């Protein structure tokens, strides 16, 4: 359970530079380098819960799309491992 506290929500974790144009604050969630949004479009106020909500919803949505199209998404890695082990070469 997570209680809402203003200060917590409005203190994002520190940014780690990932490439010249992207940073990372939450694990596996990239963000644009804020320097690129200083002239034409300003960033919105984004409480932490919102970032996490969107990222989680994205995952749920993609998962849903797979299920919508097929019962199962086949793992390429498994098939490739079989191939590399030589038992897939039929």
């Amino acid at each position: 359970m997570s209680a809402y506290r203003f200060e917590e929500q409005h203190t994002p974790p520190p940014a780690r530079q990932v490439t010249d144009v992207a940073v990372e604050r939450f694990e596996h969630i990239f963000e644009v380098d804020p320097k690129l949004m200083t002239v034409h479009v300003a960033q919105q106020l984004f409480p932490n819960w919102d970032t996490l909500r969107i990222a989680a919803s994205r995952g749920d949505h993609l998962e849903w799309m797979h299920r919508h199209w097929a019962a199962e998404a086949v793992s390429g890695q498994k098939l490739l491992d079989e191939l590399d082990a030589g038992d897939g070469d039929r």
Partner: protein
Amino acid sequence: MTITGTAPQLSDRVLAELTDALGGEYVLTSKTARYNRARVPAPFPVHRWRERVPDLVVLPGSAEQVAEVVRIANAHRIPIVPRDGGTGLTDGAVPERRGIVVDVKRLDDIKEIDLDNRTCTVGTGINMLKLNEVLGAHGLIYPDDPASYPCSLVGGRIGTSGWSLVGSRFGHTRDLVLSFELVLPTGKLIRVGDGGGRKVSKSSSGYQLKHLFMGHQGTLGIATEATLKLYPKPEAEFSPFWAFPDFDSAYRCVGELARAGVATFAGAVLFDEWKVDYLRRDDEAYIPQPADVRALVCAVAYGNDDEVRAGGRRLLRIARDAGARYLGDEISHGDWAARHDRYATPLHGRTPAGQVAPMSWHCEDAAINYTNLPAVRREWHSIVARLRDKHPIFDDWGMFFYTSADTGVDYLTEIDVGIWEQELDDAAWAAWVDAKRDIAAVALNHGGSISACHGSCREGEVDLVPLELGGGYDVMLQVKRALDPNNIMNPGKYGLQRAYEEAP
């Protein structure tokens, strides 16, 4: 014709007849109703919005009401524009000569699901994803899958003769729609299919009219009901993504995958360096990729589990032998699931200084043979580079090449261009129209077609349609005049006004 964007110009008499036919609630005259049906996603100078505003909008609730509206319009010689999802990218659903927008979204019922013959019959205002939510409960799917899968509608798919991401396996809209009911420009209601039967997939009886009444961009009538071909919902999906250090090896690989004759093969896509650079701007899958990733290929397969696995092994072997590096399950699964609906976010746009600017997504979508892809790619990028040099409100978002068929004969060849509409003035627009014409000319010079998906009605490209179709274009003019004697159905599109100007 005056263009003022103010009150409707139709007489009270027409308004009264329409209100009698539909009920007042479904005849919309407000400014917001009209302005919001004067646009589709394709960029257009916003200061010229008013040029395309219709006089009024109707929301018919049945085929008979559609027919009645068309009869009234035909009697009074008022232009009609069919509109469904309004996601079309060639301005088809946008009025060029005001008149009445016939918005068919209320025709969204599922009339029949025939489990034994594997068909369903629906109103043309229904969306494919919504339909498949219902069909899924029966283990069935209607696999017409444009990247606008969650938002385009069956009538618009017919109006454009749309292209599907998984068309290499299941066919495109023209293959998946078995028959449909259509209101002709005179208000007569007919049914067209392969022959006369509603659920027949192959007939030799008579002219093959189904094809004629697809992809006409609403210039020959309004489809109100369609009978669709259904497939078993796939047991398995396979969507590997691979990285390459250069375009050429990726290009060779995609060709081999497409030519391999794998029965569950549903499509393969090649992404070029520009596209990879663009993905690195903001796509979580590609931001962390090493610098030597310069091109990507993906393949997709759908079907029964055992068949997908068998085909999958073959595809993986081909890719491995072509020097591909598999990007892993997470990217492969995530990226494919996002293809049904992702598309461009305006903030992908970058000024030459690298700043984020909100840009519209514009996409050129020629059909090109495999052997001509490299040449077209070179020429298109240089057209867009020249454009951006002059007008930095344009941005090259890279190219995709996407198989259209199961043999790898031709590819939907797409260049995505960002256009900063907030800054789009008349000069930039004129330059853009020229560029579009040049882009279309390249496609034709290389033996292709201007459009694989959307149609070719927009300024610039439309000039070259007679060149593309040759004598076929004259036949188009004759057909148009025969079926629409008063030129009321979506007038102005495809230059068809010529049918009424000169003896064809």
